[in-house]
């Protein structure tokens, strides 16, 4: 795609080999248009961070190709690195340095010669200019996050990778950061690739979203396009008596019935029409819990994967799980 800042073709990343191989990414294809905020939405361990590690040159590709800002990440990794910025999930700054010294070091690492005026502009933009010569160990979390974004913008990158940028932040700091992400995208014209497992964050910030799970991109589109995929309401039901799925499926308007643990997830054309019919089939006293969800990114994820975003799969083999975790961190 001509105006795509990031292009990924059949990209796979495998840690280890043989029986112990962990397929972190499997044949991922993406084309991220320039100037957009693109969200990768998925649960922990879905492959979001691995994709960022691959695209930033931190880890190698096993198979496939990827280009960032017009440069192949295998052939021209340094060209890519001089055109990208990075904001980590945890704030990573040199605490022994002042804000200005952190910017100085970033300028040295990015081989910038004329950086002072740009640094001052950024410090002013993020309201840090009065604290420019204070050590960052004395900064609040919000200030540290702002400085980290300033570092990412110092060399005027084409793309900024934000890996779970609001994880662990309180609500007000998270809201402040949302405002900053929207503003920098508009004011500095950068493409933002943001990973998150917060539905509301993806919905509020992203122009386009890809849903990723178990290393695979399952769906991609604008938030409205994704929500439009689910032309149905989802009813989640817990019943105290044995349930015959065939009986549930026979209720008019039911499109699909799926078991999910002790619950039943029922996809219906209209929950308003379905609920009275359900109560006619099962006495109200036998229904322990019932919830209805209108189309949202949450229901899109549930519809595609069969589970909610916050629901991790049960760990069956603890030793294998920790072995995989160790390999994934390498």
């Amino acid at each position, binding site marked *: 795609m001509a105006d795509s800042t990031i292009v990924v073709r059949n990209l796979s990343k495998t840690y280890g080999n043989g029986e112990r191989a962990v397929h972190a990414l499997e044949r991922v294809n993406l084309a991220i248009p320039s100037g957009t905020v693109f969200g990768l939405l998925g649960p922990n361990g879905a492959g979001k961070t691995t994709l960022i590690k691959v695209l930033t040159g931190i*880890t190698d590709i096993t198979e496939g190709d990827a280009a960032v800002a017009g440069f192949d990440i295998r052939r021209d990794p340094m060209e890519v690195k001089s055109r990208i910025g*990075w904001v980590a999930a945890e704030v*990573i700054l040199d605490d*022994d340095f002042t804000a200005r010294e952190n910017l100085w070091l970033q300028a*040295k*690492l*990015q*081989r910038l010669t004329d950086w002072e005026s740009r640094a001052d502009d950024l410090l002013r933009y993020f309201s840090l200019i009065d604290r420019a010569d204070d050590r960052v160990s004395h900064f609040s979390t919000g200030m540290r996050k702002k400085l980290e974004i300033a570092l990412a913008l110092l060399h005027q990158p084409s793309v900024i990778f934000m890996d779970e940028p609001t994880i662990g932040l309180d609500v007000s700091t998270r809201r402040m950061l949302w405002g900053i992400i929207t503003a920098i995208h508009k004011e500095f014209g950068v493409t933002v690739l943001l990973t998150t497992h917060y539905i509301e964050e993806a919905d509020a910030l992203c122009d386009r979203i890809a849903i990723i799970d178990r290393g695979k991109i399952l769906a991609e589109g604008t938030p409205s396009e994704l929500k439009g995929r689910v032309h149905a309401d989802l009813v989640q039901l817990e019943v105290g008596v044995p349930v015959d799925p065939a009986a549930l499926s026979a209720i008019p308007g039911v499109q699909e019935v799926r078991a999910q643990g002790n619950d039943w997830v029922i996809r219906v054309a209209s929950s308003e029409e379905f609920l009275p019919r359900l109560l006619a089939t099962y006495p109200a006293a036998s229904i322990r819990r019932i919830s209805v969800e209108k189309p949202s990114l949450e229901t899109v994820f549930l519809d595609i994967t069969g589970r909610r975003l916050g629901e991790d799969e049960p760990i069956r083999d603890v030793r294998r799980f920790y072995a995989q975790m160790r390999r994934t961190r390498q």
Partner: protein
Amino acid sequence: MTPSWSALYGLYVREILRTFRNPFVLLVTVVQPFMWLAFFGSSFSDVPAGLLQELFGTSNYIQFLLPGVLSTSMLTVGMFGSMSTIQDKRFGFMKRILITPTSKGTVFVTKALGSATRGLVQFPIMVAAALAFGVRFHVVWWQWGVWVLALMLLATGFCSLFLAITASSTDWQTPGVVSNFITMPLMFSSAALFGSSHFPAWMQAISSVNPITFSALLGRSFVLGTPVDWTYLLYLTIFAGVMLTLGYLVSRRWLKVE
């Protein structure tokens, strides 16, 4: 891949500033030399001067000991270089560095040179401490520079060795374990604390290829004003060059990011 001089300078300055901004590191750097000279240096204070002269070539054991202790100190700075690298990996700073156009080789070189420079901070303090203990120096003015150069080469070699061994580690304990493993054998098989002429033959063989011996003997010839064997400086240059090259290659291949 060509090294980035800009990144090399930035990361080197970072290493140095981090040392000087840590009051605890500074305190230990200043106090440790005095403790070495006070406790170890005084252990022969009641030995008759004639016997000291016969054993050490001087009646002042601290005068004999000083170049050896300085050389041994350069061995331990490698451990701190490794610890600083592991800290960068664990706190994510290594990732921040390597997402910029900075190579792993550049990171290695700055860590090795930064740690070596940090080790040299002890030099003037140790010399001042020795003066306070009554040591007289017979060093010609330009020999001070050569002595510092020799120590820098020794420290660069050991820092490179440590960094190469711990390149793929992210465990805080690794540098300490490696240090425990190699410090004692290298220190006691060298001529740092005692002259090697009284060693058994097998230890003399080890001592004769031990870089700490080269540095200690070179420094000792400066302090005592005895004839200088310049091949020691050549050996130290080879040691630093080989270790620096080895560490650079190992880091480019195996330096872990996190």
